[in-house]
């Protein structure tokens, strides 16, 4: 019982650290991350809280509440990443096209 909690806490801290060491991170994102991890930490230490919160919201079990929240969170992550991929793709495309134009081989300057 105690050991799984220790492992979870250690993992949380490692992930939080990995997130926070990013140099160019908006302060607001740091704050949100710290709050979220604090919340998770509390949940690990006192799991009953989630059940009580779930009951207040009319959801049966704490695990269900967490399941919903996790779902929402990962959807958010997926959409964010998807949008970023599109932006990145556009940038790469523009870059590739500009490169092709700049390196154009003209008919008269053929290497033999």
């Amino acid at each position, binding site marked *: 019982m105690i050991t799984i909690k220790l492992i979870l806490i250690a993992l949380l801290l490692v992930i939080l650290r990995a997130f926070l060491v990013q140099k160019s991170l908006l302060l607001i994102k740091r704050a949100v991350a710290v709050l979220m991890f604090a919340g998770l930490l509390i949940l690990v230490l006192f799991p009953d809280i989630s059940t009580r919160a779930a009951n207040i919201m009319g959801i049966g079990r704490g695990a269900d509440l967490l399941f919903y929240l996790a779902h929402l969170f990962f959807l958010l992550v997926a959409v964010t990443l998807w949008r970023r991929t599109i932006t990145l793709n556009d940038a790469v495309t523009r870059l*590739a096209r500009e490169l*092709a134009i700049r390196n154009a*081989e003209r*008919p008269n300057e053929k290497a033999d």
Partner: protein
Amino acid sequence: MAEPSVWVIIPAYNEGQVLAETLRELQEYNASYHLVVVDDGSTDNTSGIAREFAVHLLVHPMNLGQGAALATGIEYALRQKADIVVTFDADGQMRPADINPLVEAVVKDGLDVALGSRFLKSADSKMPTLKKIILRLGTIFTRLTTGLNITDTHNGLRAFKAETFAKLHITQNGMAHASEILTAIARCKLTYRELPVTIRYTEYSKRKGQGASNAINILFELFSRGGK
């Protein structure tokens, strides 16, 4: 006024087998055309073949799709002060003889765009039936979305007034750019005309070209990028 310069943009993706024949035909047809081959990240010797001809060669570092290849070639031609831009496939399906009427329509009649159509001629080449049906659906789709009454919405043979094209901002990398061009024609209220062209359906082109199933992909491309 001096003769307007005509730049023919030829997107080519792994067309090493047929590119030489296509370029030879084009040069024999009209030596004054400026030919621009855009090698769209081919893994075969497409670039090597192009280098054997007096063409401008642009090479994408990776495969980006026909729309991107056209956009690159056209952008280049515009920077070279092209007057007229023609889009022409590398795969030998198009006939160079169809180019001049399109160019004439733009130059003499002052149109913004002249579009090739496979359906204006009764003597249509041997187009696969399924492809014909899909293309018909394409015309209906285009009529509904743009109001343009066009007989052939996915024909790759067109001639543009260069200054006009500069305003269109084509962003679709893949095959959906054809619909995008039409949308732009409707949006910018360009003057256009369709002229009959003959497209050859060889075994090679049928094997390599866009199968009917790709219509689904084209639709998907349009919608997934539509909101931007």
